[in-house]
């Protein structure tokens, strides 16, 4: 008998549930969401500046004739600012945010408290929102940087996006194989126990032999599109431009990182949306319980 497929929650419901949680969080602790989003924004911005922008600045500076002292002063000032941002971020995440979550939990109706605490619903939702902000900041900053260095690089950054459908196909085949293998393992059989193990093992091995090469081929294609094309294609183009004087050493060093983080965010966007859907399902339970109590 075929199992009924679990129905997906419609996007409108996902949005409504998240809005419901946001309103609830705003009522119980108005600063929690804005502070979470603000720390995510600054953390993503600092990550871009530290890993990409200032590294580019220092290495380009060598070619542009900047003095060592000048570069050292700029990098040291940035270090102080970065340490301050990191310190505040850690202080918020490790000290302030848990206390705020405690505060929110203490104001929730008793009927949903266990559900909220057990499944870390507030923390998970806050992580989802922070991930979205980080995605927006990383995408925007890296897009601007690549545009500034050389707009043709955006074409190269688009290549890994071709991997998105293959990743989806890979995920669905993997899920199907997992379900099928679970069925094979739990099927009632007749005969000697060891024989049954051998028979099930043989069946599973045949399945993996037949389907494994498809998964391997698609995985390989995704790796070639996402890693090899960016790392080698990007470097080849950057080296060519650097030799011809159209790029600095810094540009050459950071474009692989910049393209990598830009495409990584875009390629993982479907997973991020899936996380939002998952947390919306958890919020639905709180919502239903609260609405029941209100009635």
């Amino acid at each position, binding site marked *: 008998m075929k199992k009924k497929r679990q129905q997906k929650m419609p996007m409108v419901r996902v949005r409504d549930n998240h809005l419901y949680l946001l309103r609830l969080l705003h009522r119980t602790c108005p600063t929690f969401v804005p502070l979470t989003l603000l720390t995510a924004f600054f953390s993503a911005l600092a990550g871009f500046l530290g890993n990409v922008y200032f590294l580019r600045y220092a290495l380009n500076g060598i070619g542009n004739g900047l003095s060592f002292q000048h570069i050292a002063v700029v990098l040291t000032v940035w270090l102080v600012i970065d340490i301050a941002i990191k310190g505040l971020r850690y202080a918020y995440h490790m000290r302030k945010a848990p206390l705020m979550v405690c505060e929110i939990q203490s104001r929730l109706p008793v009927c949903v*408290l266990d559900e909220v605490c057990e499944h870390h619903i507030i923390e998970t939702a806050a992580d989802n929102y922070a991930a979205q902000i980080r995605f927006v900041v990383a995408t925007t900053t890296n897009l601007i940087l690549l545009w500034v260095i050389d707009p043709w690089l955006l074409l190269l950054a688009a290549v890994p996006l071709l991997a998105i459908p293959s990743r989806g196909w890979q995920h669905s085949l993997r899920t199907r194989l997992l379900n099928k293998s679970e069925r094979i393992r739990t099927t009632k059989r007749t005969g000697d126990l060891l024989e049954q193990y051998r028979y099930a093992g043989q069946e599973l091995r045949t399945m993996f032999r037949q389907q494994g090469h498809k998964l391997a081929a698609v995985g390989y294609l995704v790796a070639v599109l996402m890693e090899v094309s960016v790392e080698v294609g990007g470097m080849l183009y950057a080296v060519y431009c650097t030799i011809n004087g159209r790029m600095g050493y810094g540009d050459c060093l950071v474009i692989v990182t910049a393209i990598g983080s830009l495409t990584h965010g875009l390629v993982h966007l479907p997973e991020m949306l899936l996380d939002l859907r998952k947390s919306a399902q958890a919020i639905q339970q709180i919502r239903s319980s609260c609405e029941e109590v209100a009635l």
Partner: protein
Amino acid sequence: MSMPKRAAHIVGEVGKYAPGYLIMVVIEGLLMGVNQSIGIFHTKEVFDLLWEGAGFAPIACILLEFALYLLLHYAFYHWFKERYQPHAREHLHVMVAEHLLEYAGDLNDRPYHETAPATRRIADRVDQILEHFGRVITHIVAVLAITAVLIWADRGLALVCIAVSVVRLVIAAVYDHLNVRHTEQVKQLDKQRHDLLAALNIKGEILRDYHERKRQLFTQGNRKLWWLTFVTESGMMAADLGIILWMLHGLMVTHTVHLGTVAVSATALWVLSWQLRGLYGRTVRLLKSVR
């Protein structure tokens, strides 16, 4: 039997029942470890040639060589992960079942679908141990290979990177210890809350007490964790900048360093430190999984 011995014993047993699988796990571990240093090695070569004013052809040759390496590496990796490993795991599962039935004869009377989940759990545990074993090999090889590349680039750079990474590792171990203790306390408190709510006889004061205790736990426990994280991360960032400035000084002022070494120094400390941390974490997980 001590935990390392137990781990070695289980890995040895796997070697007896599925020697091919064990050999492939070791090969995959070795290749993944080497892979960590290949990128650093090529970055250094490319930037050194750029600095020396070499033309496009020699640099393109190095990059195409790197591309060929990556294509072969990914071909092996995906074949191993998607085709070979699931197949070998099932073979191992049958071997584990045979082994169990040999020692626990009374299981033979039970129906297959009842015993299968239990043997599956044991086989999964064995597989988990093998996975940790493979990753431990990866991290050991990665640390050695990265250190070798750094020594080749600049001995002083290698020495500083190793020293800072070891200090970070020690602090990380202390952090993990404190974090585990703190998480346990929170879990214990949450369990009490769960029991209270389950008892249906909920009193406002009891829950107020729970929230207050939880608040105190977070206020006190997280202070130490915050300090440790802040000091470690600030120290790492300062060390990282110090290394970059030191290399830049060598390149721009004393002319003793090549551009490739400066390019490598930008990431070397984090990569090495991450690998050392990974080695520690995986070893702990490997030993825990044989308990």
